[in-house]
């Protein structure tokens, strides 16, 4: 391997010593910039490190997301953590092991081929030779660049990777612990922050007397510009204060939004930056029958069950921040910048929170706490968000309009395909486009004006355009992207970004084309796939579900299929859904086959895929953010129903075994295919295609009336 092929995390953190240390005898200290957000990454990284070092998993002490000691690895997002973070760790650990063995061979006058490692102890000709990583550590300096030249283990030799190690974080969580929300030092000062109801809103009036009265216990009010925070030794007091303030504050100016924001016609009427990319083929459009279909998805929110929490302490000019964000190193930089502090005076510590399915308010809560702490030195400030603010002030996942058009050749297959997308950007995390994107920083006087925004670059998978290129063998494909830069909402990343809506649209459209050609929709797909791994995944799910034996049954249920390879570079995933449509859509059964290359933890992968399927089903069946009175009007689970226990059917998942292929990111691969499969099942059950999401009773009824 040549050095410029090193994974990005290793390029940015090149020294072995940035990743591992042998300090306490018997324990390997592994440091990572990737963080646990519910996806099981800490377990997978532990397995990779233990495997390559030949130690046991319980010998690994993993430190994650602490900026004073861990490598800076950007965000834990985009299904990159195992492939990039884990890939880096594999190289580092293999190289460290080789350095130790070379040093030992030198000392013993033997070759490394005579040596082996067991539980971190070194064996010579099968016998313990009295040396181990810890006794030799002083002789093997790790302050050297990783070269990436040491071969890692062959998958056939794995004893830890590929096994379903139980999640390392679960036992504590099952006892009710393990969350940042549970940190509350004795002298902790609880805080709540009043949120602006829309961008740049000015706080005209706040009845502080009413707020004090509602608190029921002594609180302090910190007001600066359009920022207001309530602090107290009592959490319930600040909760009550903040709730009253939320209802009583009067706001003016700023950028209110219209009730119809995000509707297809609205999106298409916005100023846009347009680009046309000939993604495949070029030249003259071929002759044939033109077909076209318009799809739409609304704004969504990520909907973590636990509202965000952040803690901070400012003492002697140094700021410590505890957060459950996705990118501690990035947050570190932007908190320092927003507070005008030097980087070395700020440390960010990752602690676990409720699941992050994308850019949530964790960074905002951390910055809230950090800012308040700088005003109240010496105290540990703990900020928690309310459920209402979680809906109203969180980043939103963009509404999108998607138009697909194709020219169908004499063989019934598309000879030409155009995907046209209207969407605001799917990424406004801290630091993106040079903006802090930390909510409270824009309420403070002298806020740095927002710089123009753009979407995720194509080489990072794109945002709205993610998975816009169908996986099928199309002789010609054109992408027209209308990026809407002026939507006054913090539009950002939710699991899969634009991919799930694009996959929904593409897979529905492919079903329509198959139907027009009079062919089975799964066979039709197979006929347009030359990638053998793609075909195998589809064939596997067909076998699992008995697809070719199934026809619409008498009870009105129908099956639909959805397939994609996430970002066209990560895991392959095919889903078949059996559903009925009566009063509402009911899911009866789901089957899924996926190919994720070398799998570190098969049960962890199945857990992630099942979660993605359920979340994708929830997006498509239920979810939509409403706007009213210039702002987000959704502020409770009643307004934003998600799938519940009674909605979830039995789900079978099978991983296609390809251990000699590189690990493919898996966390997001199921979302799009699950939604698409539901769309196709519903279309079969109804005989009418529903192109406007979500597939609620109201939307289905209104689209049936138009049909």
């Amino acid at each position, binding site marked *: 391997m040549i050095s410029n092929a090193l994974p990005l995390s290793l390029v940015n953190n090149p020294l072995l010593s940035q990743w591992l240390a042998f300090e306490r005898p018997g324990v390997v200290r592994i440091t990572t910039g990737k963080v646990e957000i519910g996806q099981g990454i800490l377990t997978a990284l532990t397995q990779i490190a233990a495997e390559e070092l030949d130690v046991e998993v319980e010998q690994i002490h993993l430190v994650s997301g602490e900026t004073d000691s861990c490598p800076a690895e950007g965000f834990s997002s985009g299904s990159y953590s195992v492939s990039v973070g884990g890939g880096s760790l594999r190289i580092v650990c293999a190289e460290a092991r080789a350095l130790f063995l070379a040093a030992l061979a030198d000392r013993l006058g033997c070759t490394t081929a005579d040596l082996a490692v067991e539980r971190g102890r070194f064996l010579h000709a099968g016998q313990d030779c009295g040396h181990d990583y810890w006794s030799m550590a002083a002789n093997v300096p790790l302050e050297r660049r990783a070269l990436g030249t040491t071969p890692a283990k062959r998958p056939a030799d794995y004893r830890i990777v590929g096994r379903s190690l139980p999640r390392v974080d679960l036992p504590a969580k099952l006892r009710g612990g393990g969350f940042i929300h549970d940190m*509350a030092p004795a002298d902790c000062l609880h805080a709540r922050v009043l949120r602006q109801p829309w961008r740049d809103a000015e706080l005209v009036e706040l009845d502080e007397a009413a707020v004090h009265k509602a608190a029921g216990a002594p609180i302090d009010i910190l007001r600066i510009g359009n920022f207001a925070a309530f602090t107290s030794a009592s959490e319930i007091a600040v909760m009550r204060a903040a709730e009253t303030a939320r209802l009583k504050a009067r706001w003016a100016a700023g950028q209110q939004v219209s009730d119809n924001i995000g509707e297809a016609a609205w999106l298409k009427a916005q100023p846009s930056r347009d680009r046309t990319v000939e993604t495949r083929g070029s030249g003259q459009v071929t002759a044939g029958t033109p077909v076209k279909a318009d799809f739409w998805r609304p704004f969504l929110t990520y909907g973590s069950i636990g509202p965000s929490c952040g803690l901070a302490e400012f003492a002697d000019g140094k700021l410590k921040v505890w957060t459950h964000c996705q990118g501690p190193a990035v947050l570190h930089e932007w908190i320092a910048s927003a507070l005008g502090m030097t980087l070395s005076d700020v440390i960010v510590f990752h602690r676990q929170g409720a699941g992050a399915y994308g850019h949530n308010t964790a960074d905002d809560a951390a910055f809230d706490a950090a800012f308040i702490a700088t005003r109240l030195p010496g105290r540990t400030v703990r900020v928690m968000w309310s459920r209402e603010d979680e809906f109203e002030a969180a980043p939103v996942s963009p509404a999108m309009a998607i138009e697909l058009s194709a020219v169908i050749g004499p063989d019934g297959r598309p000879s030409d395909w155009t995907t046209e997308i209207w969407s605001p950007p799917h990424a406004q995390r801290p630091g993106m486009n040079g903006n802090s994107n930390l909510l409270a920083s824009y309420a403070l006087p002298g806020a740095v004006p927002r710089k123009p925004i753009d979407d995720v670059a194509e080489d990072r998978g794109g945002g709205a355009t993610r998975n816009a290129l169908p996986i099928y063998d199309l002789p010609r494909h054109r992408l027209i992207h209308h990026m809407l830069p002026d939507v006054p909402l913090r539009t950002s990343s939710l699991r899969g970004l634009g991919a799930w809506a694009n996959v929904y649209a593409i897979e529905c459209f492919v079903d329509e084309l198959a139907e027009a050609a009079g062919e089975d929709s799964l066979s039709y797909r197979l006929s347009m796939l030359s990638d053998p791994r793609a075909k195998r995944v589809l064939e596997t799910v067909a076998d699992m579900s008995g697809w070719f034996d199934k026809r619409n049954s008498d009870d009105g249920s129908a099956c639909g299929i959805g397939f994609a390879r996430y970002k066209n570079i990560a895991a392959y995933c095919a889903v078949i859904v059996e559903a009925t449509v009566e009063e509402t859509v009911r899911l009866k059964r789901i089957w899924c086959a996926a190919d994720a290359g070398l799998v570190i933890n098969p049960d962890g992968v199945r857990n992630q895929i099942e979660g993605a399927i359920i979340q994708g089903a929830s997006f498509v069946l239920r979810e939509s953010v409403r706007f009213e009175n210039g702002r987000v009007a959704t502020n409770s689970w009643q307004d934003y129903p998600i799938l519940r226990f009674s909605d979830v059917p039995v*789900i079978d998942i099978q991983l296609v075994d390809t251990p000699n292929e590189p690990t493919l990111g898996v966390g997001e691969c199921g979302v799009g295919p699950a939604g698409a499969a539901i769309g196709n099942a519903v279309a079969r059950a109804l005989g009418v295609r529903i192109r406007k999401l979500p597939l609620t009773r109201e939307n289905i009824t209104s689209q049936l009336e138009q049909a």
Partner: protein
Amino acid sequence: MMVERIEFVVNGVQARVEVDSTTPLLAVLREALNLRGSKFGCGTEQCGACMVLVDGKPVYSCTREVGSVAGRTVMTIEALSHDDERHPLQQAFIDEQAGQCGYCLSGILISSVALLERNKAPTREEVIAALEPHLCRCGIHNRAIRAVQKAGTVLASAPSK
């Protein structure tokens, strides 16, 4: 608001707090009693993260006023395990790896305790009915259902204490 002295039993231990009786039970558990296993999720009985047992019945502690539990018994997630010994439900959730982020688990385990207390062999539908008040965003529903059924089997075969 008036501060009152309120007594109740939490996890087998007598608790005595001096608070405004309208304070939510959850706030008292987490703040005054330092029992942080029950989670704040919504504050409006819509997600189930805060579920505790009051006299054996699942109750949303985020809205339940502490004054109303005076003289009653409250059970939280902390009561499930002692030292290294796990409750069969905790073990079954580990066996099934029924967890991703884990934030909803405290409440789900509490409702499961109440279910298995009255029915140690619940059908899938019965588990679903018991867990319906709980939201899980990660998608562990099927694993949780299997874990509850498995724990029921273990409890049914265990000698009663």
